[in-house]
């Protein structure tokens, strides 16, 4: 039971970070449920039908999603704001529809036969991705991404290749979502396309919005709370979804910018030096 919680929370943290990474360059993606599905299915096919070891399969699935993410983001990034969000919703919907119509992976019936993932895989991944994001948050790249997110036109006029960075973020976000999806599929043992629909994507975005979008901790806290809160509310029986929904509404009213809304300046070292003697 506790293993299930660790697994579910870890996967959701990784998914929340996959949205956060894309958001770093200013795009809100509702496609990550789709990227996760690609990871789950590609890795499942690799392990079940070709006997590829799980970790290698997860990395390869991440690579496929990376290329897919860049491939769909390239035309999608011609749009902005709300339109881009709608395009990402469309991406999630088409991935699901695509998987439902491929008989090779079981179509609407789903796909099974995979196994071998443990919660510790996911815990290790959370540590690795978290460390990478922490490194990023102290780097100049973070500052450059912040500039793109603040005002991409001005960022470009300073010499920043905005499209390149946005594509890189989409690719990286898709990679993380797919690796998370790979381990999820090999833990849950059975996947169906409708698990990865638009609602899944909405939930992932919700983790980040509720947690806070300006630092890596927001997504982590948001995903953890949103994963464990429904479990803690089991006693509420049939009222659970209602109370859970109300909890979201209340959180958004009380903390409209998320639980941890702060942004950490990228000049941490410099700031310390500035302290008066």
């Amino acid at each position, binding site marked *: 039971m506790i293993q299930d919680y660790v697994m579910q929370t870890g996967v959701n943290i990784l998914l929340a970070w996959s949205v956060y990474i894309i958001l770093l360059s200013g795009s809100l993606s509702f496609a990550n449920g789709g990227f996760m599905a690609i990871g789950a299915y590609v890795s499942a096919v690799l392990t079940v039908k070709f006997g590829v070891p799980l970790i290698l399969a997860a990395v390869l699935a991440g690579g496929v999603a990376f290329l897919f993410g860049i491939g769909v983001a390239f035309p999608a990034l011609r749009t902005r704001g709300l339109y881009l969000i709608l395009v990402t919703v469309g991406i999630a919907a088409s991935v699901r529809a695509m998987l439902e119509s491929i008989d090779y992976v079981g179509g609407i019936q789903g796909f099974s036969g995979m196994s071998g993932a443990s919660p510790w895989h996911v815990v290790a991944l959370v540590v690795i991705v978290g460390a990478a994001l922490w490194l*990023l948050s102290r780097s100049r*790249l973070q*500052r450059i991404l*912040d500039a793109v997110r603040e005002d991409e036109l*001005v960022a470009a*006029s*300073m*010499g920043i290749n905005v499209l390149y960075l946005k594509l890189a973020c989409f690719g990286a976000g898709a990679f993380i979502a797919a690796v998370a999806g790979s381990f999820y599929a090999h833990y849950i043992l059975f996947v169906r396309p409708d698990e990865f629909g638009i609602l899944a994507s909405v939930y992932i975005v919700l983790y980040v919005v509720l947690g806070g979008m300006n630092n890596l901790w927001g997504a982590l806290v948001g995903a953890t709370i949103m994963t464990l809160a429904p479990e803690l509310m089991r006693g509420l029986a049939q009222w659970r979804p209602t109370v859970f929904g109300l909890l979201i509404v209340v959180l958004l009213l009380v903390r409209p910018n998320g639980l941890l809304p702060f942004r950490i300046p990228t000049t941490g070292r410099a700031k310390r030096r500035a302290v008066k003697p």
Partner: protein
Amino acid sequence: MIAKSEPLLAIRDLNKQFRGLTALDGVSFDIAQGELLGLIGPNGAGKSVLVNVVSGIYGATAGTVSFLGSDITRLPSYQLARLGIARTFQNIRLFGRMTVLENVLVADKRYLTRPFRSLFAKGAHDDLAAAEDLLERVDLIEKRDALAGTLAYGEARRLEIARALAGGPRLLFLDEPAAGMNEREMQELAAVIRSFRPALDAIVLIEHDVALISELSDRLVVMDSGKVIATGKPVDVFADPRVVEAYLGVEECDD
């Protein structure tokens, strides 16, 4: 050796249409190395459109722009910036949720061109000295850790300039940097512009204040309705009846 006579920037027959509306109509002029060129004209003359086309924010409908002899008309904004063409924005556009210091540091070209290198670069710290020196010169050093969005109007204007300079540009377009400033602030701005002028190959200053622009500019280009209507030394240009007419309205002195 580059011949002294080769212009830094050559604009030829530049044309910009917005759905049939002509914003630039056959604009041609050179920006010489070392000069401070004043660009003036009434509102809607096309000055800002010209800067937007030259800095790659809008594509040109027709015509060419060349930088040191090479055609840059179709280059995207970020490549123009990397060549050394910088600009400020008429409606201040700072990165409001970043600190004053970060606004300047982000322009460091060494990392803009290879952003992912900065993830792993060890020992290559921010060039804090250069950034702080720049903030010192625009009198913002005290505000270095304040969020740019909290700056007062005049401070924000100065930070716009500091940020544009931080990338070490060769050619700088200042789009109405003195807009909304009082006399004293304008004099401070003039001093700032003079102080960094030697570090640049050329400056183009868009400004409405006749006294300020006459004082700073070596040469003026006057635009009206998307066309260049006069060029020359400030004294000559302001004696030109066409300029007087464009600026002061039709025949105001006529009894």
